[in-house]
């Protein structure tokens, strides 16, 4: 299978933040969710992929080609949904379309009109008159109207109500019926979109903590819940992080067999949500930083 997106050992330093050896890859025909808390580096990585900022070192390949040397050709095949609006706010929607469309060799007006109708977007309104959710819809319509092979979305569900999030989900599932399409989206809230993601890449403080299939993640981590008196220093070693209340503990573990062996049925082991994993890993890191 071909890698549609290949990020290798990317480094980028700012005064108070840096990306450290960021690597991951996305195979053709699949969806990757790029998750992490605010400020973890998601947007920076996406801007690097889109060559909007320069990397210090490392390599990025899109469709198997260097993303800078082949920038024009690559961008013709990418549908990019920005988190902030990137279009000139004083223009009306149809004017923006008229300016942008000629840049794409495969721009499809029928497709564009279909999305405009579907999202109920007012073409003769100025962009600045639109609500945040409507702006996001417009951005999505613009990104999909040239029939891209790779869709990159930065926080696409931010500002969208649950109804449109569900609509977007349907739309993406429909697109994925074509096995040559791939999707890469970032999100700081674990959302409905995660349901359909094949791979999850978790970035924290500029570092990739894992990049695996979602199935592997939900099978290798477990949330353990039980009474406080079961805890001891030894068993805490098999926890990534543990929180306690007066009534019991909750911990994230990657060693389910050991916990089962140790505690049997005296604890509950649940499959963690991505949010559980994100929160526990964050707390574990913060704790380690304080010690």
């Amino acid at each position, binding site marked *: 299978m071909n890698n549609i997106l290949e990020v290798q050992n990317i480094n980028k330093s700012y005064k108070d933040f840096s990306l450290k050896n960021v690597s991951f890859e996305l195979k053709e*025909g*699949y*969806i990757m969710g790029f998750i992490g808390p605010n400020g973890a580096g998601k947007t920076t990585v996406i801007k690097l992929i889109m060559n909007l900022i320069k990397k210090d070192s490392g390599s990025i390949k899109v469709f198997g080609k260097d993303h800078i040397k082949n920038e024009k050709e690559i961008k013709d095949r990418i549908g990019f949904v920005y988190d902030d609006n990137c279009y000139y706010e004083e223009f009306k929607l149809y004017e923006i379309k008229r300016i942008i469309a000629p840049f794409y060799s495969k721009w499809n007006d029928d497709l564009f009109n279909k999305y405009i109708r579907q999202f109920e977007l007012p073409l003769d309104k100025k962009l600045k008159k639109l609500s945040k959710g409507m702006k996001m819809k417009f951005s999505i319509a613009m990104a999909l109207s040239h029939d891209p092979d790779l869709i990159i979305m930065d926080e696409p569900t931010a500002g969208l109500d649950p109804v449109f999030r569900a609509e977007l*989900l349907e739309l993406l*599932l*429909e697109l*994925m*019926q074509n*096995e040559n399409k791939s999707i890469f989206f970032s999100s700081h809230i674990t959302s409905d979109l995660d*349901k*359909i*993601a*094949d*791979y999850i890449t978790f970035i924290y403080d500029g570092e990739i903590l894992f990049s695996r*299939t*979602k*199935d592997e993640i*939900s*099978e290798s981590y477990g949330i353990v819940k039980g009474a406080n008196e079961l805890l001891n220093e030894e068993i805490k070693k098999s926890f990534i992080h543990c929180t306690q209340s007066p009534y019991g503990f909750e911990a994230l573990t990657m060693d389910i067999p050991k916990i089962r062996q140790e505690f049997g049925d005296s604890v509950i*082991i*649940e*499959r963690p949500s991505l949010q559980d994993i994100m929160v526990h890993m964050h707390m574990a890191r913060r704790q380690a930083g304080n010690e």
Partner: protein
Amino acid sequence: MMKIILSNSSDKPIYEQIVEQIRSQILYGELSEGTQLPSIRKLAQELRISVITTKRAYEELEREKLIETVAGKGSFVASQNKELMREKKLAEIENKLSEAIKDSKLLNMTLDDLIEILRFLYEEDKHE
């Protein structure tokens, strides 16, 4: 028509839930030989889950020789050897009984208690 109901609260992985339900529908004849299954991508779309998950479920069913995938055509319920079918069904019954045994032990029931219930249910079914 194939039926699949997924539970997010089950501790069974999603792909396993799919395998179990399709497997039992094949073994009990609800899905007959030659029936075409939806494509991996179609099933993922309809269940609103990832493609990797449905792919894994189909791979498992193929490994168990319950379905066959023909390149370019799709996946179909495989023809089942009668002897093998019986064995698989027996294995399924054993699994279900093991579960019942495990639960009965939690209630400190004896083997005789359990046999008594089994006999009662078996006889009752015969009368219907």
